[in-house]
């Protein structure tokens, strides 16, 4: 595992770029830092879903449910809604645990299902969670229904408040910039965890189940437990991402957790390359940033060309999404940056 000097230099360069990035973005407007933060959140979600879909091969269309669970756990424990204001480092693990339990509850009845059937059941589960959030406002007001929960506490570490700006020398650390660094740390941890899981006994068992469940069982893998583990791990990541989403946004409502979001995260995983951590990250970044770039370019371009707005950027977004997926499936069916084994499989088929 030794790195060459060139690798080390490259890594250092990337690190410096990532550290400097928010300030560069901030000079173009704080909005871009926020956009980046949401992109990183989506990367976290994609990496979580990648465990379930990419490693274990279980098609999950309701993944946003765990994101929702994490977000609501944070919202309920750190907002005036119940008057609770726990610190984030207490809530995030709670959110991960609750999401993990939700993952097991979803996983348990679906263990015998595969492929399309599994997708349909998980899709239903995702919707059930959202509808629960929408309706749990009476008789006891748990979630405040469709109105959602607002005035959620930002992260606070000692005197460091993540919603306010701090100035050190000439550098202005705005709230989003602080969240950016925090997200970067979490992302780093999640990447390390993913890689280690992939190269472990459990990771091999996941892939074995994806490849041939019967052979996996006959080889002594307790497929029930190992599948539940995949659901639980994936859900935990979703829960943590959800908690951070609630804090960054300061507001959650059921609207944020619609089926579209599940599909979006799945698209990121598939587009990037199922099973390959770097591919998934690339896919998530791409699908997060391209719509934003469109939002900022489509309107001025149209106004300059036609003098008025003809196509709404939001419409284009879905068009680009669909086109990207269709093209990927046609030309790079294993994703833009596939897992090594998939890539070998594809190149071999072509030969």
């Amino acid at each position, binding site marked *: 595992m030794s790195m060459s000097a060139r690798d080390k230099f490259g890594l250092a360069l990337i690190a410096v770029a990532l550290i400097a990035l928010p300030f560069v973005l901030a000079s173009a407007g704080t909005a871009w830092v926020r956009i980046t933060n949401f992109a990183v959140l989506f990367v976290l979600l994609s990496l979580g879903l990648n465990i379930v879909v990419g490693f274990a091969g279980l098609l999950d269309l309701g993944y946003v449910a765990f994101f929702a669970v994490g977000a609501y756990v944070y919202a309920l424990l750190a907002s005036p809604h119940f008057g609770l204001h726990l610190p984030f480092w207490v809530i995030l693990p709670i959110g991960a645990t609750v999401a993990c339990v939700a993952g097991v509850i979803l996983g348990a009845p679906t263990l015998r299902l595969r492929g399309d059937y599994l997708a349909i059941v998980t899709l239903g589960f995702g919707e059930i969670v959202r509808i629960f959030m929408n309706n749990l406002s009476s008789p006891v007001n748990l979630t405040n229904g469709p109105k959602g929960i607002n005035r959620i506490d930002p992260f606070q570490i000692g005197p460091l408040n993540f919603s306010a700006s701090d100035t050190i020398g000439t550098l202005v650390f705005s709230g989003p910039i602080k969240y950016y660094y925090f997200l970067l740390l979490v992302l780093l941890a999640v990447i390390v965890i993913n890689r280690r899981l992939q190269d*472990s*006994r459990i990771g091999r068992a996941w892939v074995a189940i994806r490849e*041939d469940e*019967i*052979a996996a069982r*006959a080889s002594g*893998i*307790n497929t029930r437990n190992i599948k539940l*583990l995949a659901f639980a791990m994936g859900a935990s990541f979703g829960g943590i991402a959800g908690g951070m989403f609630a804090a960054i946004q300061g507001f959650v409502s059921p609207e944020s957790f619609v089926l579209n979001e599940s599909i979006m995260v799945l698209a990121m995983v598939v587009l990037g390359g199922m099973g390959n951590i770097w591919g998934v990250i690339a896919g998530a970044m791409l699908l997060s940033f391209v719509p934003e770039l469109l939002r900022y370019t489509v309107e001025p371009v149209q106004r300059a060309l036609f003098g008025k707005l003809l196509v709404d950027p939001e419409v284009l977004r879905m068009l680009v999404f669909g086109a990207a997926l269709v093209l990927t499936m046609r030309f790079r069916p294993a994703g833009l940056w596939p897992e090594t084994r998939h890539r070998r499989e594809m190149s071999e088929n072509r030969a």
Partner: protein
Amino acid sequence: MNTVLLEASGIGKRFGGVQALKDVSLTIKSGEIYGLIGPNGAGKTTLFNVFTGLYPRDCGEVQFAGAALDLASPHAVAAAGIARTFQNIRLFANMTALENVMVGRHVRTRAGVFSAILRTRAERTEEAAIRRRAEELLHYVGIADRADDLARQLSYGDQRRLEIARALATDPKLLALDEPAAGMNATETTALRSLIEGLRRDGLTVLLIEHDVKLVMGLCDRVAVLDYGEKIAEDVPEAVRANPKVIEAYLGASAA
């Protein structure tokens, strides 16, 4: 030698209107190669799937290594010490040969999610041991040079060997091979035969389903014959070959 390893009694299995297995009892002794033959559709593979927990049985008991075998779950059967291969090779096609065998070590190792995330010393030691054992087994079955190739890229004969290596990785007491010579050419069959003989020399008990009667008769210590789900003979190969019921089952009544 000659202690009973597996004793099945009164195994029955029905698929709808078809009685696939009817009151099958057999005894496999430690260290022997036990052949299971019979015409197509006689229930050989069904019996295999019952023994390895893939099909639930309707009735009957199996004693294995002195204890009742839990036939409800395949992984428990593997843990108890029965490993199998499949008639239609079932490898993890997009994993390397080495990884395939490493998966077989799953049941004998324990590292969980947390020790993997923390990369504890115990986990690293275990991983290294898994890898070493898998490499040994690839060497044992003679495909060490294909370790980093995907299972799907191996030749047919090598895939059969890889499946055996994966089964051996579970440290079985009984290795059950479902038609290992099916589709093999003469050279591959000869090589397979010496591999199975090597397994016996190393003290493993083998249960062998095979169509290649020559291979079975030459290799097995004892042979059982199934016909329409019933055991019609169980004896040393020469006696089985001379058994009129067996001849009838294979060639029809007029030949007997």
